[in-house]
């Protein structure tokens, strides 16, 4: 019996489609958008046929569906995640800069708090290994500072962290134990 797809039904469908889309960011954008559109069109057809609740139930959860799409597109087993790598590469500098800035502010406040230091330049080595030395200029109780840039090691740690977080070595083409994708005949595993 045909069912009427109401606005609420469309919202429920869109919620699932959006939720699925969020889990497919490791796919190329064109593929991701194509899957999103296909699932939406199929869900609307199914909802008109069997009702939205049943259509959503038969599709399964967005997590499982996304997992199957990722397996279908990228192969089964452990794989890399560009999303995780990007998340690390974007959030770690924010956190790192916050703590480095707090450390520099603490040094500056130590210079100005007691008002016992004469005007002049003061150099602090910075957080060891992570940043270059900072130079503080104290003039009439006011301090300014320059320096404190990241060292090459910091950039290296960021790069290594992003690679480790996203397991990006799995994106490299396999040189050994490469097996072609199973054919329909091969997949007749009984």
């Amino acid at each position: 019996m045909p069912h009427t797809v109401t606005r609420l039904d469309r919202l429920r469908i869109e919620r699932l489609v959006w939720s699925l889309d969020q889990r497919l960011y490791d796919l190329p954008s064109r593929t991701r958008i194509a899957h999103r559109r296909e699932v939406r069109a199929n869900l609307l057809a199914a909802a008109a046929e069997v009702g939205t609740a049943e259509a959503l139930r038969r599709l399964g959860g967005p997590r499982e569906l996304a997992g199957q799409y990722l397996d279908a597109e990228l192969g089964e087993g452990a794989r890399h995640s560009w999303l995780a790598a990007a998340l690390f590469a974007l959030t770690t500098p924010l956190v790192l800069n916050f703590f480095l800035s707090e450390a520099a502010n603490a040094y500056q406040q130590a210079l100005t708090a007691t008002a016992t230091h004469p005007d002049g330049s003061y150099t602090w080595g910075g957080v060891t290994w992570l940043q270059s030395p900072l130079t503080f200029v104290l003039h009439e109780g006011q301090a300014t500072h320059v320096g404190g840039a990241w060292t090459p090691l910091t950039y290296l740690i960021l790069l290594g962290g992003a690679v480790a977080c996203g397991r990006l070595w799995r994106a490299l083409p396999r040189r050994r134990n490469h097996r072609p994708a199973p054919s329909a005949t091969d997949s007749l595993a009984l």
Partner: protein
Amino acid sequence: MTLSSTGDSLVLVTSSHDPQLLKGVLSLLLLHLLAEQESYGYEVVQRLQGAGFTDVLEGTVYPALARLEREGRLASRLVASSSGPARKYYRLTDAGQQALAAGRAGWARHAAGVDAILSRPTTAAPQKGS
């Protein structure tokens, strides 16, 4: 599960399915259904269910179609629909036809092998200690 072949048409009558068995032959079933007739995802599911696979879920079929398309066995095109967004219709490619032929032969070989073993008479299990 009973599988019988009448000419080019494949008829499957099942009451309940072992998910592992179904997973193994799903690609073959999809290739055959799409060789019969170009279809979109939900229509393929309906046709599978109409053939007796009532417990095949859409969430299994759509990614399987995506995998077959990525492997070059299916091609697709968007067709405007009067009742909603454009639908993605799948059809077999030449590679898909070859995979279907190979799959059919493979299935016949497996089924014959399994039948040959299952048709042997069995004896009563030996008693313990005898």
